[in-house]
């Protein structure tokens, strides 16, 4: 079976969807609780942090245009240490990334839309769809993202335009009330949810793109698109709901859609808006699962990666039921562990790899 290569356009849309992914639902509340009415400024600083991290990833991709992340680890750290570090990275990422987001979907649906349905049923349905999507492989995922992308753009634009009548600029004042430190702290939270997991995209983009030398453009444009969407959503939550309601509610962007009311006629369309998040969360999760299993199969030397998808998806769905014992655990996890974890795997790991690459180059130059 020949390896399928995605086009630059597909890579751009994949990156954009991956960026929007879970952030659109989870980020506004945490950001507003740290930075209050300056959350939108914090988001802009977070985008800067994120682009720093993404350019480190891209530098790594430029050095090794034919290898993916696991193969880069193996070349630079030696076969066994590279394999061990790669395995550790994949297992921890599997626990922190797709599994927790899957429970987040279950929480969201049971809290906001179907309070009488048990969370296991929703996790099972979503997990099964994501596993099937990941099982069909990168080609199917990339093409279906292309198909769904206009809908997400349309729903997002509709939501933004319909909310403009509710915007009150006074809600953002006073600007810089709490000084600079909360801004940086909130920006780090933003970047850790939205941008640092982009390290996982290194499984796709230099090696599985048909023109790897141009991949950086697609990744930059996709990330830019995703971050524009997120900054607009965060700014809207502050402008429409105000900082305190945003910080107190679990899913402020859903409340945002509930606020839409045009002439007491066009209202309660939040379910339509929820479709947008389901689409973006579906693709983020399916891509996570695909990339993690692809990495695992490379480490174990298995050519047929499709076969591993169903058991891996099953593990993901089962773990998702009890990965967070309760919401309080989730909040302390997001605040205290997730940020350092993503800093290590999303920023320090690629920097370490770049450093090793530099040392290797120096030594080969000396011996030559």
């Amino acid at each position, binding site marked *: 079976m020949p390896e399928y290569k995605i086009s630059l356009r597909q890579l751009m849309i994949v990156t954009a969807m991956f960026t929007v992914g879970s952030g659109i639902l989870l980020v506004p509340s945490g950001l507003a609780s740290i930075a209050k009415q300056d959350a939108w400024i914090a988001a802009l600083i977070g985008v800067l942090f994120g682009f720093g991290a993404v350019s480190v990833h891209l530098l790594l991709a430029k050095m090794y245009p034919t290898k993916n992340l696991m193969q880069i680890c193996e070349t630079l750290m030696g076969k066994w240490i590279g394999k061990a570090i790669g395995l550790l990275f994949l297992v921890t990422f599997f626990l922190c990334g797709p599994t927790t987001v899957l429970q987040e979907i279950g929480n969201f649906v049971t809290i906001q839309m179907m309070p009488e349905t048990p969370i296991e049923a929703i996790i099972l349905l979503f997990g099964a769809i994501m596993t099937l999507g990941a099982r069909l492989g990168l080609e199917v995922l990339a093409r279906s993202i292309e198909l769904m992308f206009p809908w997400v753009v349309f729903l997002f634009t509709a939501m933004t335009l319909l909310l403009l009548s509710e915007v009150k600029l006074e809600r953002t004042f006073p600007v810089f009330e709490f000084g600079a430190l909360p801004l940086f702290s909130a920006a*780090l939270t933003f970047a850790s949810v939205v941008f640092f997991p982009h390290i996982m995209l290194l499984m796709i983009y230099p090696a599985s793109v048909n023109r790897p030398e141009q991949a950086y453009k697609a990744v930059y444009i996709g990330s830019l698109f995703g971050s524009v969407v997120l900054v607009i959503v965060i700014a809207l939550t502050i402008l429409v709901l105000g900082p305190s309601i945003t910080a107190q509610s679990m899913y402020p962007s859903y409340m945002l859609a509930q606020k839409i009311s045009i002439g007491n006629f066009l209202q309660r369309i939040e379910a339509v808006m929820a479709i947008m998040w389901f689409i973006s969360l579906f693709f983020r999760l399916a891509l996570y699962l695909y990339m993690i299993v692809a990495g695992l199969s490379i480490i174990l030397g298995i050519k047929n990666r499709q076969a591993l998808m169903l058991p891996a998806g099953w593990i993901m769905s089962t773990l998702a039921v009890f*990965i967070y014992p309760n919401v309080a655990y989730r909040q302390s996890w997001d605040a205290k562990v997730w940020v350092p974890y993503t800093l290590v795997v999303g920023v320090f790991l690629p920097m370490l790899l770049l450093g090793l690459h530099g040392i290797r180059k120096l030594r080969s130059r000396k011996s030559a």
Partner: protein
Amino acid sequence: MIRILLILAVAALISWIELPRMIRRKERSAVWGFSVLLLLAVGISVAKVLFTSLPTPLTYIAIAFRPFSRFLTALGLI
């Protein structure tokens, strides 16, 4: 009991979908990887049925990252 039987039935279904093709193509490493993952999945599911409250695996990651997390907290960044 019936729930454990259901789990085993699902495992059988998944093996029935995936295994024959792998065996026909004689992909030994794929069969190994598949069986280990499937065994893990069945194990976690059965454990979830037998014990109502399982500890979350995130605890170990939290312990591993505690020093770094404290350092960042001391800096005021998180």
